[in-house]
């Protein structure tokens, strides 16, 4: 029998369940659109430009604008809860 030597995994376990993607919407008409600005230099310009282009083609039920506290931190849980409650679709972008 061949002798063996032990090998080790240096990576540690990730204790998190993967989340499924939300189903794609088929029609934008009448939906509530949320825009999440990550507060980078040009994120607001990029998002507002896309918002204006989309609004020319689609009649949204509402357009809501949100800002993260800092571009380098995850959005606060209560902000995510608000966005979820107040919108049907959300658009986010960074703009360096």
């Amino acid at each position, binding site marked *: 029998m*061949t*002798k*063996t*030597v*032990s*090998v*080790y*995994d*240096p*990576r*540690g*376990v*990730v*204790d*998190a369940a993967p989340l499924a993607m939300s189903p794609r919407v088929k029609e934008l008409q009448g939906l509530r659109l949320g825009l999440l600005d990550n*507060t980078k*230099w040009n994120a607001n310009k990029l998002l507002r430009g896309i918002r204006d282009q989309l609004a020319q083609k689609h009649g949204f039920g509402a357009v809501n604008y949100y800002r993260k506290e*800092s*571009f*380098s*931190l*995850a959005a606060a849980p209560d902000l995510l809860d608000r966005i979820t409650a107040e919108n049907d679709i959300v658009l986010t972008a960074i703009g*360096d």
Partner: protein
Amino acid sequence: MGKTETPRSPAPIEAPAVPEGTDLIEWYYERGCSDGLPVVPPTPEKIASAVTALGGEPARVVTRVPPRWGSLTREVLAINMVMAGCRPEYAPVVEAAMLALCSPPFNLNGVQATTHMASPLLVVNGPIRQAIGMNAGCNVFGSGNRANATIGRALRLVLLNVGGGWPGLLDKSTLGHPGKYTYCIAENEEASPFAPYHVEKGYRAEDSTVFVLAAEPPHSITNHYANDAEGILDSVCSAMSTICNNNAVSAGHCAVVLGPEHAATIAKSGFKRHDIRHYLWAHSGNRWDDLYGNGRYGKVYNRNLPVWYKREPDARTPIVPSPDNIHLFVAGGEAGRFSAFIPGWGHMSSPVLRGVGGAQPAGGAECADGTCAL
């Protein structure tokens, strides 16, 4: 034209054992577990020694490391320490540094993922420096000392292996810098005319601490002509006042490392740590319009800078918002009139000072669970 390597996730390790005679260095390379240099293949004996030095209980979770959020158990930390080449007695420093890096004010998630080149700089204070043979003298940022080299390397291996900060995948740094291999020094308390850094921050001299800062590489400051504090410090101010370091446009914290000769000259003028930090703050900075092309690209507000900065063409823009955001150390060899300025990443990350082995400050600092947010 240069070839760009496609980013690659490490392959899963399923086999707990391989045939004797396997080239283990190549085996770990093939699984993507290296920082690019050969790793020391861990053995059960070496891992056990490191786990014991960490306090036993191999399954105990030390912390979780972003952005992958892998669980850093004592055993996993020991494996990475061995791979880096650490001796077991480095364990208290490595553990304290990982806890400091993973405390919320440091925002390791952002540090790991940013397009900026920042990498954690670790500065060690107190008697553990000498106990484990760290270099605080000649070539302090350079090669040649096992403790400095392998402690810094162990942190990087954890950030890669457990934190998932693989270049091109979760680490989006445009350029990176050589400190991403290892970036660890000790303060030269013996050659310093000032109180050690950790004593300034409220610890006892006999305590040991780790300090971490998300940092750019050191920028050399040469001054061979001045024989007083002002002359030396004006050179430091000049290095601080470049318009493109990340502090200049994103505030935050920075470090200044005075070489012992410069420190002695400054001390001879009667300057203490407090005076040095205030002098540097008061006499560094940039003209607002110089930071933004003198109006060529329109009016710039820059939300990264504090709201109280005056945004007018001739206004002085500080490098960092307060003298307390300049972290002052003395390190390096006894000969040579050199110092270094080390810009930070910006307001997105705060440096963290932590006692080794649970040491707490004698008083005065805002601390919780052994970690002091600065």
